[in-house]
Protein backbone atom coordinates (compact mmCIF):
# COMPACT_ATOMS: atom_id res chain seq x y z
CA UNK A 1 0.00 0.00 0.00
CA UNK A 2 2.77 2.40 1.04
CA UNK A 3 4.62 1.57 -2.19
CA UNK A 4 1.55 2.42 -4.29
CA UNK A 5 1.15 5.77 -2.52
CA UNK A 6 4.85 6.59 -2.95
CA UNK A 7 4.70 5.68 -6.65
CA UNK A 8 1.58 7.82 -7.13
CA UNK A 9 3.30 10.77 -5.44
CA UNK A 10 6.37 10.32 -7.64
CA UNK A 11 4.19 10.24 -10.77
CA UNK A 12 2.30 13.34 -9.68
CA UNK A 13 5.55 15.20 -9.03
CA UNK A 14 6.90 14.18 -12.44
CA UNK A 15 3.65 15.25 -14.12
CA UNK A 16 3.80 18.62 -12.36
CA UNK A 17 7.34 19.19 -13.63
CA UNK A 18 6.41 18.21 -17.17
CA UNK A 19 3.49 20.69 -17.15
CA UNK A 20 5.72 23.37 -15.63
CA UNK A 21 8.48 22.89 -18.20
CA UNK A 22 6.10 22.73 -21.20
CA UNK A 23 4.29 25.89 -20.11
CA UNK A 24 7.59 27.59 -19.28
CA UNK A 25 8.92 26.88 -22.77
CA UNK A 26 5.62 27.97 -24.32
CA UNK A 27 5.73 31.35 -22.57
CA UNK A 28 9.44 32.03 -22.38
CA UNK A 29 10.56 30.92 -25.84
CA UNK A 30 8.88 33.82 -27.70
CA UNK A 31 10.24 36.23 -25.10
CA UNK A 32 13.75 34.80 -25.49
CA UNK A 33 13.38 35.13 -29.26
CA UNK A 34 12.35 38.78 -28.83
CA UNK A 35 15.39 39.46 -26.62
CA UNK A 36 17.71 37.78 -29.09
CA UNK A 37 16.22 39.59 -32.11
CA UNK A 38 16.13 43.02 -30.51
CA UNK A 39 19.74 42.63 -29.32
CA UNK A 40 21.06 42.05 -32.85
CA UNK A 41 21.38 45.79 -33.19
CA UNK A 42 23.62 46.83 -30.28
CA UNK A 43 22.18 50.38 -30.33
CA UNK A 44 18.55 49.34 -29.69
CA UNK A 45 18.47 48.82 -25.91
CA UNK A 46 20.78 51.71 -24.95
CA UNK A 47 18.56 53.96 -27.07
CA UNK A 48 15.37 52.64 -25.48
CA UNK A 49 16.46 53.61 -21.96
CA UNK A 50 17.65 57.06 -23.05
CA UNK A 51 14.41 59.03 -23.27
CA UNK A 52 15.73 62.34 -24.75
CA UNK A 53 17.62 60.50 -27.48
CA UNK A 54 14.70 58.16 -28.10
CA UNK A 55 12.24 61.02 -28.53
CA UNK A 56 14.66 62.73 -30.92
CA UNK A 57 15.26 59.60 -32.97
CA UNK A 58 11.70 58.22 -32.93
CA UNK A 59 9.36 61.13 -32.13
CA UNK A 60 6.26 59.13 -33.17
CA UNK A 61 7.17 56.32 -30.78
CA UNK A 62 7.72 58.79 -27.94
CA UNK A 63 4.33 60.36 -28.67
CA UNK A 64 2.73 56.90 -28.68
CA UNK A 65 4.27 56.02 -25.30
CA UNK A 66 3.14 59.28 -23.71
CA UNK A 67 -0.34 58.96 -25.24
CA UNK A 68 -0.72 55.38 -24.00
CA UNK A 69 0.41 56.28 -20.47
CA UNK A 70 -2.05 59.18 -20.44
CA UNK A 71 -4.85 56.98 -21.75
CA UNK A 72 -4.08 54.23 -19.24
CA UNK A 73 -4.09 56.65 -16.29
CA UNK A 74 -7.20 58.54 -17.35
CA UNK A 75 -9.10 55.35 -18.23
CA UNK A 76 -8.29 53.85 -14.83
CA UNK A 77 -9.51 57.01 -13.08
CA UNK A 78 -12.69 57.31 -15.17
CA UNK A 79 -13.44 53.59 -14.77
CA UNK A 80 -13.07 53.80 -10.97
CA UNK A 81 -15.13 56.99 -10.70
CA UNK A 82 -17.94 55.41 -12.72
CA UNK A 83 -17.82 51.84 -11.62
CA UNK A 84 -17.10 51.87 -7.88
CA UNK A 85 -20.07 54.03 -6.83
CA UNK A 86 -22.32 52.23 -9.35
CA UNK A 87 -21.38 48.76 -8.11
CA UNK A 88 -21.84 49.86 -4.48
CA UNK A 89 -25.16 51.55 -5.23
CA UNK A 90 -26.48 48.51 -7.11
CA UNK A 91 -25.59 46.29 -4.17
CA UNK A 92 -27.13 48.58 -1.58
CA UNK A 93 -30.18 50.02 -3.25
CA UNK A 94 -30.89 48.15 -6.48
CA UNK A 95 -29.97 44.50 -5.89
CA UNK A 96 -32.56 43.42 -8.48
CA UNK A 97 -30.60 45.28 -11.16
CA UNK A 98 -27.38 43.43 -10.38
CA UNK A 99 -27.77 40.86 -13.16
CA UNK A 100 -28.74 43.54 -15.68
CA UNK A 101 -25.75 45.73 -14.80
CA UNK A 102 -23.46 42.71 -14.94
CA UNK A 103 -24.85 41.80 -18.37
CA UNK A 104 -24.37 45.36 -19.63
CA UNK A 105 -20.82 45.46 -18.34
CA UNK A 106 -20.00 42.12 -19.97
CA UNK A 107 -21.39 43.15 -23.36
CA UNK A 108 -18.16 44.75 -24.66
CA UNK A 109 -16.51 41.37 -24.25
CA UNK A 110 -18.90 39.80 -26.74
CA UNK A 111 -18.64 42.58 -29.34
CA UNK A 112 -15.55 42.38 -31.57
CA UNK A 113 -13.41 45.53 -31.49
CA UNK A 114 -13.95 46.09 -35.19
CA UNK A 115 -17.73 46.12 -34.72
CA UNK A 116 -17.32 48.43 -31.74
CA UNK A 117 -15.34 50.84 -33.89
CA UNK A 118 -18.06 50.89 -36.56
CA UNK A 119 -20.51 51.94 -33.84
CA UNK A 120 -18.08 54.34 -32.21
CA UNK A 121 -17.05 56.14 -35.40
CA UNK A 122 -20.14 58.40 -35.65
CA UNK A 123 -19.99 59.02 -31.88
CA UNK A 124 -16.37 60.04 -32.21
CA UNK A 125 -17.28 62.49 -34.96
CA UNK A 126 -19.13 64.38 -32.22
CA UNK A 127 -16.35 63.79 -29.69
CA UNK A 128 -13.88 65.32 -32.17
CA UNK A 129 -16.28 68.21 -32.77
CA UNK A 130 -16.57 69.03 -29.07
CA UNK A 131 -13.24 67.90 -27.60
CA UNK A 132 -10.85 67.86 -30.55
CA UNK A 133 -8.98 64.89 -32.00
CA UNK A 134 -6.57 64.35 -29.14
CA UNK A 135 -5.59 60.73 -28.49
CA UNK A 136 -6.82 61.19 -24.92
CA UNK A 137 -10.40 61.11 -26.20
CA UNK A 138 -9.91 57.36 -26.68
CA UNK A 139 -10.37 57.18 -22.90
CA UNK A 140 -14.17 57.04 -23.40
CA UNK A 141 -13.98 54.03 -25.68
CA UNK A 142 -11.41 52.34 -23.47
CA UNK A 143 -13.56 52.81 -20.39
CA UNK A 144 -16.27 50.76 -22.13
CA UNK A 145 -13.71 48.23 -23.31
CA UNK A 146 -12.38 47.56 -19.78
CA UNK A 147 -15.82 47.34 -18.15
CA UNK A 148 -16.12 43.51 -18.24
CA UNK A 149 -12.79 42.97 -16.47
CA UNK A 150 -13.01 45.89 -14.08
CA UNK A 151 -16.64 45.22 -13.08
CA UNK A 152 -15.85 41.58 -12.33
CA UNK A 153 -12.88 42.54 -10.17
CA UNK A 154 -14.78 45.20 -8.20
CA UNK A 155 -17.89 43.04 -7.82
CA UNK A 156 -15.78 40.18 -6.46
CA UNK A 157 -14.25 42.59 -3.93
CA UNK A 158 -17.70 43.78 -2.84
CA UNK A 159 -18.92 40.17 -2.50
CA UNK A 160 -16.16 39.52 0.01
CA UNK A 161 -17.48 42.12 2.49
CA UNK A 162 -20.91 42.81 4.00
CA UNK A 163 -21.38 46.12 2.18
CA UNK A 164 -24.92 46.67 3.42
CA UNK A 165 -24.10 46.30 7.12
CA UNK A 166 -20.90 48.35 6.86
CA UNK A 167 -22.75 51.11 5.00
CA UNK A 168 -25.63 51.12 7.48
CA UNK A 169 -23.24 51.12 10.44
CA UNK A 170 -21.37 54.12 9.08
CA UNK A 171 -24.62 55.90 8.14
CA UNK A 172 -25.90 55.47 11.69
CA UNK A 173 -22.63 56.97 12.96
CA UNK A 174 -23.29 60.10 10.90
CA UNK A 175 -21.51 59.36 7.61
CA UNK A 176 -22.87 60.73 4.32
CA UNK A 177 -22.77 58.55 1.20
CA UNK A 178 -19.44 59.94 -0.03
CA UNK A 179 -17.86 59.19 3.35
CA UNK A 180 -19.34 55.68 3.29
CA UNK A 181 -17.76 55.03 -0.12
CA UNK A 182 -14.40 56.72 0.43
CA UNK A 183 -13.70 55.88 4.08
CA UNK A 184 -15.49 52.60 4.63
CA UNK A 185 -16.11 50.63 1.44
CA UNK A 186 -13.06 51.60 -0.66
CA UNK A 187 -10.44 50.70 1.97
CA UNK A 188 -12.03 47.28 2.28
CA UNK A 189 -12.02 46.55 -1.47
CA UNK A 190 -8.57 48.06 -2.05
CA UNK A 191 -7.08 44.95 -3.61
CA UNK A 192 -10.10 44.58 -5.92
CA UNK A 193 -9.74 48.22 -6.98
CA UNK A 194 -6.01 47.68 -7.57
CA UNK A 195 -6.78 44.61 -9.68
CA UNK A 196 -9.34 46.54 -11.72
CA UNK A 197 -6.85 49.38 -12.19
CA UNK A 198 -4.09 47.00 -13.23
CA UNK A 199 -6.31 45.18 -15.73
CA UNK A 200 -7.29 48.55 -17.14
CA UNK A 201 -3.68 49.69 -17.52
CA UNK A 202 -2.64 46.36 -19.09
CA UNK A 203 -5.57 46.42 -21.52
CA UNK A 204 -5.05 50.04 -22.56
CA UNK A 205 -1.29 49.56 -23.05
CA UNK A 206 -2.03 46.64 -25.39
CA UNK A 207 -4.91 48.21 -27.36
CA UNK A 208 -4.40 48.65 -31.09
CA UNK A 209 -7.60 48.17 -33.13
CA UNK A 210 -9.71 51.07 -31.89
CA UNK A 211 -6.83 53.57 -31.84
CA UNK A 212 -5.72 52.59 -35.30
CA UNK A 213 -9.19 52.61 -36.90
CA UNK A 214 -10.15 55.92 -35.27
CA UNK A 215 -6.88 57.45 -36.49
CA UNK A 216 -5.51 58.13 -33.02
CA UNK A 217 -2.07 57.32 -31.78
CA UNK A 218 -0.94 55.13 -28.92
CA UNK A 219 1.90 52.77 -28.06
CA UNK A 220 0.69 49.85 -30.17
CA UNK A 221 -0.09 52.02 -33.20
CA UNK A 222 3.38 53.57 -33.06
CA UNK A 223 4.99 50.13 -32.61
CA UNK A 224 3.17 48.91 -35.71
CA UNK A 225 4.37 51.94 -37.67
CA UNK A 226 7.89 51.54 -36.31
CA UNK A 227 7.90 47.91 -37.40
CA UNK A 228 8.01 49.12 -40.99
CA UNK A 229 11.17 51.18 -40.49
CA UNK A 230 13.03 49.61 -37.56
CA UNK A 231 12.06 46.01 -36.77
CA UNK A 232 14.53 45.56 -33.88
CA UNK A 233 13.34 48.73 -32.14
CA UNK A 234 9.68 47.80 -32.52
CA UNK A 235 10.31 44.35 -30.99
CA UNK A 236 12.36 45.92 -28.19
CA UNK A 237 9.55 48.35 -27.35
CA UNK A 238 6.97 45.53 -27.41
CA UNK A 239 9.14 43.55 -25.02
CA UNK A 240 9.63 46.56 -22.75
CA UNK A 241 5.85 47.13 -22.64
CA UNK A 242 5.34 43.50 -21.74
CA UNK A 243 7.95 43.67 -18.98
CA UNK A 244 6.34 46.86 -17.69
CA UNK A 245 3.03 45.02 -17.45
CA UNK A 246 4.71 42.15 -15.56
CA UNK A 247 6.43 44.59 -13.21
CA UNK A 248 3.15 46.36 -12.57
CA UNK A 249 1.43 43.08 -11.76
CA UNK A 250 4.23 42.15 -9.37
CA UNK A 251 4.13 45.54 -7.67
CA UNK A 252 0.37 45.41 -7.22
CA UNK A 253 0.38 41.91 -5.81
CA UNK A 254 3.19 42.93 -3.42
CA UNK A 255 1.26 46.05 -2.39
CA UNK A 256 -1.87 44.00 -1.72
CA UNK A 257 0.09 41.49 0.32
CA UNK A 258 1.97 44.05 2.41
CA UNK A 259 -1.33 45.74 3.33
CA UNK A 260 -2.78 42.41 4.37
CA UNK A 261 0.32 41.65 6.46
CA UNK A 262 0.29 45.05 8.13
CA UNK A 263 -3.16 44.29 9.55
Amino acid at each position, binding site marked *: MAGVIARRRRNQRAFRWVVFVVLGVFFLLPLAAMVEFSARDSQTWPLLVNWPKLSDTYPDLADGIVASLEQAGLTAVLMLVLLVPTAIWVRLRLPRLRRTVEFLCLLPLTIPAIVLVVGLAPVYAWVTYFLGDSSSTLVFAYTILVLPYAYRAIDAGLSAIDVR*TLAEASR*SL*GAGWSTVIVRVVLP*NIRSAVLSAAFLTVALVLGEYTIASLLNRTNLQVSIALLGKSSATMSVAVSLAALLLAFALLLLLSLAGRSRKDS*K
Partner: protein
Amino acid sequence: MSGVAVHLEGLRRAFGSVHALDDLDLEIAAGELIALLGPSGCGKTTALRVLAGLEDADSGRVLVGGKDVTALPANRRDMGMVFQAYSLFPHLTALENVSFGLRLRGRRRDPGRAAAMLDLVGLSAHGRRYPHQMSGGQQQRVALARALAIEPAVLLLDEPLSALDAKVRVQLREEIRRIQTEVGTTTLFVTHDQEEALAVADRVGVMRAGRLEQLAPPAVVYQQPAGAFVADFVGLSNRLPGVVSGPVVAVLGTELPLITPAAAGRVTALVRPEAVDVTPDPDGSGRVLTSSFLGSTSRVTVAVAETLVVAQVASGQLPSLTPGTAVRLTLQPVPVALDPGN
Protein backbone atom coordinates in the same frame (compact mmCIF):
# COMPACT_ATOMS: atom_id res chain seq x y z
CA MET B 1 -25.71 61.60 28.84
CA SER B 2 -29.46 61.63 29.29
CA GLY B 3 -32.12 59.96 27.20
CA VAL B 4 -34.95 61.47 25.19
CA ALA B 5 -38.46 60.19 24.65
CA VAL B 6 -39.27 58.41 21.40
CA HIS B 7 -42.68 58.12 19.80
CA LEU B 8 -43.50 55.94 16.80
CA GLU B 9 -46.89 57.14 15.60
CA GLY B 10 -49.15 55.13 13.31
CA LEU B 11 -46.29 53.55 11.35
CA ARG B 12 -47.21 51.54 8.31
CA ARG B 13 -44.82 49.69 6.03
CA ALA B 14 -45.68 47.07 3.45
CA PHE B 15 -43.38 44.86 1.42
CA GLY B 16 -45.60 43.79 -1.47
CA SER B 17 -48.66 42.22 0.09
CA VAL B 18 -46.98 41.70 3.48
CA HIS B 19 -47.66 44.37 6.11
CA ALA B 20 -44.48 44.53 8.17
CA LEU B 21 -45.84 47.45 10.20
CA ASP B 22 -49.57 47.86 10.54
CA ASP B 23 -50.41 51.14 12.27
CA LEU B 24 -47.74 50.63 14.92
CA ASP B 25 -47.78 52.97 17.91
CA LEU B 26 -44.97 52.84 20.43
CA GLU B 27 -43.87 55.28 23.08
CA ILE B 28 -40.50 54.93 24.77
CA ALA B 29 -39.87 57.08 27.84
CA ALA B 30 -36.59 58.94 28.24
CA GLY B 31 -33.84 56.60 29.43
CA GLU B 32 -36.05 53.53 29.11
CA LEU B 33 -35.00 50.21 27.57
CA ILE B 34 -37.76 48.60 25.57
CA ALA B 35 -37.36 45.16 24.07
CA LEU B 36 -39.41 44.31 20.99
CA LEU B 37 -40.09 40.61 20.94
CA GLY B 38 -41.85 38.52 18.37
CA PRO B 39 -41.56 35.72 15.84
CA SER B 40 -39.71 36.14 12.53
CA GLY B 41 -41.53 38.49 10.18
CA CYS B 42 -43.58 40.21 12.91
CA GLY B 43 -42.10 43.60 12.00
CA LYS B 44 -39.84 44.22 14.99
CA THR B 45 -36.68 44.78 12.92
CA THR B 46 -38.60 46.94 10.43
CA ALA B 47 -39.80 49.12 13.33
CA LEU B 48 -36.20 49.55 14.50
CA ARG B 49 -34.94 50.29 10.99
CA VAL B 50 -37.65 52.88 10.44
CA LEU B 51 -36.64 54.53 13.71
CA ALA B 52 -32.98 54.43 12.58
CA GLY B 53 -33.86 55.96 9.21
CA LEU B 54 -32.55 52.93 7.32
CA GLU B 55 -36.03 52.12 6.08
CA ASP B 56 -38.80 54.49 5.00
CA ALA B 57 -42.29 54.12 6.42
CA ASP B 58 -45.25 54.25 4.02
CA SER B 59 -47.05 56.45 6.52
CA GLY B 60 -46.77 57.54 10.15
CA ARG B 61 -44.32 59.66 12.08
CA VAL B 62 -41.16 59.17 14.11
CA LEU B 63 -40.70 61.66 16.95
CA VAL B 64 -37.46 61.84 18.92
CA GLY B 65 -37.44 64.22 21.86
CA GLY B 66 -40.66 65.72 20.50
CA LYS B 67 -39.01 66.53 17.16
CA ASP B 68 -40.34 64.95 13.95
CA VAL B 69 -37.39 63.13 12.35
CA THR B 70 -39.44 61.10 9.82
CA ALA B 71 -37.89 62.88 6.83
CA LEU B 72 -34.33 62.97 8.17
CA PRO B 73 -31.77 60.58 6.61
CA ALA B 74 -30.10 58.00 8.87
CA ASN B 75 -26.84 59.95 9.19
CA ARG B 76 -28.65 62.98 10.67
CA ARG B 77 -30.82 61.17 13.20
CA ASP B 78 -28.31 60.96 16.06
CA MET B 79 -28.77 57.26 16.79
CA GLY B 80 -26.22 54.64 17.74
CA MET B 81 -26.86 51.18 16.40
CA VAL B 82 -25.50 47.69 17.02
CA PHE B 83 -26.28 45.17 14.31
CA GLN B 84 -26.92 41.45 14.32
CA ALA B 85 -24.10 40.86 11.82
CA TYR B 86 -20.60 41.87 12.86
CA SER B 87 -20.40 45.42 11.63
CA LEU B 88 -16.97 46.68 12.72
CA PHE B 89 -15.00 48.25 9.89
CA PRO B 90 -12.45 45.52 9.04
CA HIS B 91 -9.67 47.96 8.06
CA LEU B 92 -9.76 49.85 11.35
CA THR B 93 -8.57 48.84 14.83
CA ALA B 94 -11.02 48.64 17.73
CA LEU B 95 -10.01 52.14 18.89
CA GLU B 96 -10.28 53.58 15.37
CA ASN B 97 -13.71 51.99 15.01
CA VAL B 98 -14.89 53.65 18.21
CA SER B 99 -13.36 56.97 17.09
CA PHE B 100 -15.05 56.83 13.66
CA GLY B 101 -18.28 58.56 14.66
CA LEU B 102 -16.42 61.06 16.85
CA ARG B 103 -14.19 62.10 13.95
CA LEU B 104 -17.20 62.60 11.71
CA ARG B 105 -18.60 64.92 14.35
CA GLY B 106 -15.35 66.86 14.50
CA ARG B 107 -14.46 65.65 17.97
CA ARG B 108 -10.91 64.69 17.13
CA ARG B 109 -9.70 66.74 20.08
CA ASP B 110 -11.30 64.36 22.52
CA PRO B 111 -8.92 61.40 22.24
CA GLY B 112 -9.87 60.14 25.66
CA ARG B 113 -13.51 59.57 24.72
CA ALA B 114 -12.93 56.52 22.48
CA ALA B 115 -10.57 54.96 25.01
CA ALA B 116 -13.07 55.61 27.82
CA MET B 117 -15.81 53.87 25.80
CA LEU B 118 -13.57 50.85 25.21
CA ASP B 119 -12.89 50.85 28.94
CA LEU B 120 -16.65 50.94 29.61
CA VAL B 121 -17.10 47.68 27.68
CA GLY B 122 -14.03 46.15 29.33
CA LEU B 123 -11.80 46.14 26.26
CA SER B 124 -9.30 48.89 26.98
CA ALA B 125 -6.44 46.44 26.35
CA HIS B 126 -7.77 45.54 22.88
CA GLY B 127 -7.71 49.00 21.32
CA ARG B 128 -5.05 48.17 18.75
CA ARG B 129 -6.60 44.92 17.60
CA TYR B 130 -8.34 44.56 14.25
CA PRO B 131 -11.82 42.99 14.16
CA HIS B 132 -10.50 39.70 12.74
CA GLN B 133 -8.24 39.41 15.79
CA MET B 134 -11.20 39.52 18.21
CA SER B 135 -13.93 37.04 19.18
CA GLY B 136 -17.57 37.60 18.23
CA GLY B 137 -18.43 38.76 21.74
CA GLN B 138 -15.53 41.24 21.77
CA GLN B 139 -16.55 42.58 18.37
CA GLN B 140 -20.10 43.21 19.56
CA ARG B 141 -18.72 44.94 22.67
CA VAL B 142 -16.64 47.24 20.49
CA ALA B 143 -19.71 47.85 18.30
CA LEU B 144 -21.60 48.86 21.45
CA ALA B 145 -18.78 51.19 22.49
CA ARG B 146 -18.75 52.68 18.97
CA ALA B 147 -22.50 53.27 19.07
CA LEU B 148 -22.34 54.88 22.53
CA ALA B 149 -19.24 56.99 21.82
CA ILE B 150 -21.21 59.51 19.79
CA GLU B 151 -23.57 60.07 22.74
CA PRO B 152 -26.63 59.17 20.65
CA ALA B 153 -30.13 60.32 21.51
CA VAL B 154 -31.30 56.73 21.08
CA LEU B 155 -29.45 53.41 21.14
CA LEU B 156 -30.76 50.75 18.76
CA LEU B 157 -29.84 47.12 19.25
CA ASP B 158 -30.84 44.82 16.39
CA GLU B 159 -30.50 41.28 17.75
CA PRO B 160 -26.89 42.02 18.74
CA LEU B 161 -26.44 38.75 20.61
CA SER B 162 -27.94 36.24 18.20
CA ALA B 163 -24.63 35.31 16.57
CA LEU B 164 -22.96 34.56 19.90
CA ASP B 165 -22.81 31.34 21.91
CA ALA B 166 -25.11 30.85 24.90
CA LYS B 167 -22.70 31.78 27.70
CA VAL B 168 -21.40 34.92 26.00
CA ARG B 169 -24.97 35.96 25.24
CA VAL B 170 -25.93 35.92 28.91
CA GLN B 171 -22.76 37.81 29.93
CA LEU B 172 -23.15 40.41 27.23
CA ARG B 173 -26.85 41.04 27.77
CA GLU B 174 -26.14 41.73 31.43
CA GLU B 175 -23.36 44.06 30.39
CA ILE B 176 -25.66 45.86 27.95
CA ARG B 177 -28.17 46.39 30.74
CA ARG B 178 -25.46 47.63 33.14
CA ILE B 179 -24.06 50.08 30.60
CA GLN B 180 -27.49 51.28 29.49
CA THR B 181 -28.47 51.97 33.10
CA GLU B 182 -25.14 53.74 33.65
CA VAL B 183 -25.36 56.06 30.62
CA GLY B 184 -29.15 56.39 30.64
CA THR B 185 -29.61 56.33 26.86
CA THR B 186 -33.11 55.56 25.60
CA THR B 187 -32.79 52.12 24.04
CA LEU B 188 -34.78 49.92 21.67
CA PHE B 189 -33.65 46.30 21.76
CA VAL B 190 -35.00 43.93 19.13
CA THR B 191 -34.81 40.21 19.78
CA HIS B 192 -36.63 36.96 19.08
CA ASP B 193 -35.26 35.46 22.31
CA GLN B 194 -37.90 35.84 25.03
CA GLU B 195 -35.45 35.14 27.85
CA GLU B 196 -33.21 37.92 26.59
CA ALA B 197 -36.11 40.36 26.33
CA LEU B 198 -37.46 39.56 29.78
CA ALA B 199 -33.98 39.78 31.31
CA VAL B 200 -32.88 43.20 30.04
CA ALA B 201 -35.95 45.33 29.38
CA ASP B 202 -37.84 47.88 31.46
CA ARG B 203 -40.83 47.02 29.27
CA VAL B 204 -41.32 44.29 26.71
CA GLY B 205 -43.33 44.84 23.55
CA VAL B 206 -44.65 41.64 22.02
CA MET B 207 -45.30 42.08 18.29
CA ARG B 208 -47.39 40.11 15.87
CA ALA B 209 -48.11 40.90 12.21
CA GLY B 210 -46.85 44.48 12.45
CA ARG B 211 -48.78 45.39 15.61
CA LEU B 212 -48.03 45.48 19.32
CA GLU B 213 -49.98 42.78 21.12
CA GLN B 214 -48.80 43.89 24.55
CA LEU B 215 -46.38 46.44 25.97
CA ALA B 216 -45.73 45.96 29.67
CA PRO B 217 -43.02 45.24 32.24
CA PRO B 218 -41.50 41.75 31.83
CA ALA B 219 -43.24 40.28 34.89
CA VAL B 220 -46.63 41.50 33.65
CA VAL B 221 -46.06 40.13 30.15
CA TYR B 222 -45.17 36.78 31.62
CA GLN B 223 -47.73 36.55 34.41
CA GLN B 224 -50.62 38.42 32.85
CA PRO B 225 -50.31 37.99 29.11
CA ALA B 226 -52.71 40.21 27.17
CA GLY B 227 -53.92 37.33 25.09
CA ALA B 228 -53.35 33.81 23.92
CA PHE B 229 -50.65 34.84 21.41
CA VAL B 230 -48.55 36.50 24.12
CA ALA B 231 -49.16 33.66 26.57
CA ASP B 232 -48.16 31.19 23.92
CA PHE B 233 -45.16 33.11 22.61
CA VAL B 234 -43.67 34.20 25.93
CA GLY B 235 -42.78 31.13 27.94
CA LEU B 236 -44.31 27.68 27.66
CA SER B 237 -48.03 27.17 28.19
CA ASN B 238 -50.16 24.09 28.63
CA ARG B 239 -53.41 24.20 26.68
CA LEU B 240 -55.86 22.60 29.09
CA PRO B 241 -59.64 22.18 28.75
CA GLY B 242 -61.70 24.12 31.29
CA VAL B 243 -65.13 25.49 32.04
CA VAL B 244 -65.71 29.20 32.75
CA SER B 245 -68.23 30.15 35.35
CA GLY B 246 -68.23 33.73 36.59
CA PRO B 247 -64.73 35.13 37.25
CA VAL B 248 -63.03 31.71 37.36
CA VAL B 249 -62.25 28.79 35.11
CA ALA B 250 -62.24 25.22 36.37
CA VAL B 251 -59.22 23.31 35.06
CA LEU B 252 -58.40 19.73 36.13
CA GLY B 253 -60.70 20.19 39.12
CA THR B 254 -59.12 23.46 40.33
CA GLU B 255 -60.72 26.88 39.99
CA LEU B 256 -58.30 29.48 38.60
CA PRO B 257 -58.90 33.23 38.34
CA LEU B 258 -59.16 34.67 34.81
CA ILE B 259 -56.86 37.46 33.55
CA THR B 260 -59.67 38.85 31.42
CA PRO B 261 -63.36 38.05 31.99
CA ALA B 262 -64.94 35.57 29.59
CA ALA B 263 -68.39 34.21 28.78
CA ALA B 264 -69.41 31.03 30.61
CA GLY B 265 -68.77 27.79 28.76
CA ARG B 266 -66.11 25.35 27.66
CA VAL B 267 -62.70 26.93 26.93
CA THR B 268 -59.01 26.16 26.54
CA ALA B 269 -56.97 27.66 29.37
CA LEU B 270 -53.27 28.48 29.04
CA VAL B 271 -51.43 27.30 32.17
CA ARG B 272 -47.71 27.86 32.80
CA PRO B 273 -45.61 24.72 33.61
CA GLU B 274 -44.35 26.34 36.82
CA ALA B 275 -47.96 26.73 37.99
CA VAL B 276 -48.37 22.96 37.97
CA ASP B 277 -47.26 20.98 41.06
CA VAL B 278 -46.59 17.27 40.68
CA THR B 279 -46.70 14.93 43.67
CA PRO B 280 -46.14 11.13 43.52
CA ASP B 281 -49.41 9.48 44.57
CA PRO B 282 -50.35 5.82 43.86
CA ASP B 283 -54.02 6.93 43.68
CA GLY B 284 -53.25 9.95 41.45
CA SER B 285 -54.96 10.31 38.08
CA GLY B 286 -51.78 11.15 36.16
CA ARG B 287 -48.85 9.09 34.84
CA VAL B 288 -45.40 10.52 34.18
CA LEU B 289 -44.57 10.07 30.50
CA THR B 290 -41.16 11.73 30.16
CA SER B 291 -38.80 13.76 32.31
CA SER B 292 -35.94 16.05 31.24
CA PHE B 293 -33.18 17.37 33.45
CA LEU B 294 -32.50 21.08 32.73
CA GLY B 295 -30.10 21.98 35.55
CA SER B 296 -31.61 23.53 38.67
CA THR B 297 -35.10 22.76 37.38
CA SER B 298 -36.51 19.86 35.39
CA ARG B 299 -39.50 19.32 33.16
CA VAL B 300 -41.94 16.42 33.39
CA THR B 301 -44.73 15.53 31.01
CA VAL B 302 -47.73 13.94 32.69
CA ALA B 303 -50.68 12.24 30.97
CA VAL B 304 -54.03 12.84 32.63
CA ALA B 305 -56.66 10.86 30.75
CA GLU B 306 -56.36 12.25 27.17
CA THR B 307 -54.57 15.45 28.21
CA LEU B 308 -50.81 16.01 28.33
CA VAL B 309 -49.59 18.42 31.00
CA VAL B 310 -46.04 19.80 31.16
CA ALA B 311 -44.85 20.75 34.65
CA GLN B 312 -41.70 22.44 35.86
CA VAL B 313 -40.32 20.87 39.05
CA ALA B 314 -37.22 21.24 41.20
CA SER B 315 -34.54 18.86 39.94
CA GLY B 316 -34.35 17.31 43.43
CA GLN B 317 -37.81 15.89 42.79
CA LEU B 318 -36.78 14.11 39.61
CA PRO B 319 -35.72 10.73 41.13
CA SER B 320 -39.27 10.24 42.45
CA LEU B 321 -40.84 11.15 39.09
CA THR B 322 -39.52 8.46 36.78
CA PRO B 323 -41.62 7.62 33.70
CA GLY B 324 -44.63 5.47 34.64
CA THR B 325 -44.96 6.90 38.19
CA ALA B 326 -48.55 7.62 39.26
CA VAL B 327 -48.87 11.28 40.26
CA ARG B 328 -51.36 13.87 41.46
CA LEU B 329 -51.43 17.29 39.77
CA THR B 330 -52.25 20.50 41.63
CA LEU B 331 -52.65 23.82 39.84
CA GLN B 332 -51.54 26.99 41.63
CA PRO B 333 -54.28 29.65 41.72
CA VAL B 334 -52.48 32.16 39.47
CA PRO B 335 -54.54 34.08 36.88
CA VAL B 336 -54.66 32.38 33.48
CA ALA B 337 -55.41 33.48 29.91
CA LEU B 338 -57.79 31.71 27.57
CA ASP B 339 -57.14 30.67 24.00
CA PRO B 340 -59.54 32.79 21.96
CA GLY B 341 -59.33 30.34 19.07
CA ASN B 342 -61.30 27.83 21.10
